[in-house]
């Protein structure tokens, strides 16, 4: 892929970096951010463990712009499976399930991340006037990375990168779902349309895709859709919705749509449109 070769340096100057991991506006391989070339089939959990460990030891950079080689390795850990009681991979996430990451405060999440900035050569501080305020966050327990370059201050880029990281965790970190005893968690009920038959009146108004809280519900929805292997009609039954209503919910968010369609593609199913 052309983007893979151009890598970090080039993406730095391109406006599409803006959409890393969050709202890829166009579909197809060309629009995929370099750090997630996820169109390869998901590795088996065992392979993912191995690769991820390798990544972790390789990811101990802080000062250098990441090497493309490392990016490629980290791509392989695209699917990360967690149980409700903890991740099945890696010691670092034993106490923290995928849902736990999203429930953490910004500060807690930040403490699990390695922050990479474009290190200035030279002494920095008063010596320097270059508005290079790009921030890249690497979430060590999962190996996911998010970046932001378009804001004009370091602080804002960090906030943007963190928001992107949350979206990525929701999209990429899967919790196992017990379908026999399934009842949708509150955060999922909150993003469902009012007409859902299992949605109680205590859920409040529907949380839309632009609300930061949507991400938590999105993660739970993807957990369910993965558990039913991509079947929207099956998932809809669990949620008290018609297939059409659930499809519309999925299509309301670009990254959610892409994640579901990627799964459906891997199962030989037609994409939602």
């Amino acid at each position, binding site marked *: 892929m052309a983007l893979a070769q151009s890598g970090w340096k080039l993406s730095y100057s391109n406006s599409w970096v803006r959409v890393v991991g969050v709202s890829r506006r166009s579909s197809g391989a060309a629009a995929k951010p370099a750090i997630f070339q996820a169109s390869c089939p998901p590795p088996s959990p065992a392979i993912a463990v191995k690769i991820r460990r390798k990544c972790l030891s390789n990811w101990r950079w802080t000062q250098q712009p990441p090497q493309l080689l490392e990016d490629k390795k980290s791509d392989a850990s695209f699917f990360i499976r967690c149980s409700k009681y903890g991740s099945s991979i890696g010691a670092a996430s034993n106490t923290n399930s995928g849902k736990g990451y999203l429930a953490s405060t910004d500060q807690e999440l930040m403490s699990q991340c390695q922050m990479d900035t474009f290190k200035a050569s030279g002494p920095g501080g*008063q010596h320097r006037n270059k508005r290079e305020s790009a921030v890249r966050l690497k979430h060590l327990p999962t190996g996911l990375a998010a970046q932001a370059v378009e804001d004009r201050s*370091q*602080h804002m880029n960090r906030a943007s990168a963190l928001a992107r990281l949350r979206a990525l965790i929701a999209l990429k970190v899967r919790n196992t779902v017990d379908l026999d005893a399934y009842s949708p968690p509150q955060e999922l009920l909150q993003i469902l349309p009012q007409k859902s038959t299992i949605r109680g009146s205590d859920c409040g108004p529907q949380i839309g895709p632009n609300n930061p809280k949507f991400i938590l519900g999105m993660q739970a929805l993807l957990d369910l859709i993965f558990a039913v292997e991509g079947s929207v009609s099956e998932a809809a039954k669990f949620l008290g919705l018609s297939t059409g209503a659930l499809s519309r919910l999925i299509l309301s968010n670009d990254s959610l749509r892409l994640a579901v369609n990627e799964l459906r593609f891997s199962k030989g199913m037609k994409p939602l449109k």
Partner: protein
Amino acid sequence: MKLSFSPKLSTFLKPSSVTNLHRSFCSSSISSPPPTSLKPQTPLFLKPPIHSAASSDLQKWHDWAKSLASSVGSTFVDLDNGPDSTLLCREIKWLMEDAIEEESEGMENNQRSIRLRVALEELYMLWKQRVEERRPFQYVVGCEHWRDLVLCVQEGVLIPRPETELIVDLVGDVVLGNEGLREGLWADLGTGSGAIAIGIGRILGTGGRVIATDLSPAAFEVAGFNVQRYGLQDVVELRQGSWLEPLKDMEGKLAGLVSNPPYIPSDDISGLQAEVGRHEPKVALDGGINGMDDLLHICKGAASMLKPGGFFAFETNGEKQCKHLVEYMENDAGGSFCNLKIVPDFAGINRFVTGFHK
């Protein structure tokens, strides 16, 4: 000069601050009109969008600006570690963000026209200044985005650096579990644009106050403008004077003391990146022979200013100055400080010294 009285500007200010701003600037200009150069200039993004240009003409400007940026290549990087074409191109985007009124497209004589906050000819001039004179981008647009703030800056006032953003976080950490510090009196010495003082003023408790000092009349005016813009005139008090001099009545009363004083060794000034060395105020950069004149001066006064348990954080030139400062505070300051720490900046350079008064 376009000053802040235009009705358009007031719409950008918080309602509470408008009248105060108006009053304070009016009254000061009536009683003793300062030289015009000291008056805060309206930054580009706050100017009224009274100009317009055909979109094709703006496109022409954009193409020209990009080709000028591209012609730089890595010349400035090689010369003095200045900006390269990529960075300059991003600045063009930001310049347009500030110059163009959003959603302003209209039709004029069958052509799409765009409303601008500056005439197109001036936009040509501004970008020429940026590239050919190496005028700092922040002076060109009259502001700097710092933390979640947009601070006005102009010639004569140091542009706040991204490294310095961390001082506010350091203060945020210590006030979090300490009411005495959160509700206490703080001082920012050599405040410049007012960046640190405003950043701290926004995280202190309702009883917390910040006194910001600066010797430079230009900085004093600009900091005042920024304080007003964020509606903090009841929280941040500005006092004009050198370092601790305007704080004589505060001895032993300060809960916290922060500063980013000039710390570049005099010999290094001539080799600075052109944007810095040619355009920013030397008085805010040059820290004397080893760069520590002002840092040591402030440290000497810190013990008498801080109350017991008071916190301080100072920015330095790097590892060497940090060590020197810690050594000084441990040995020469008569054991009046404790919990001394050296804190690195985001690039890993040991940048800050923090500690507490015993």
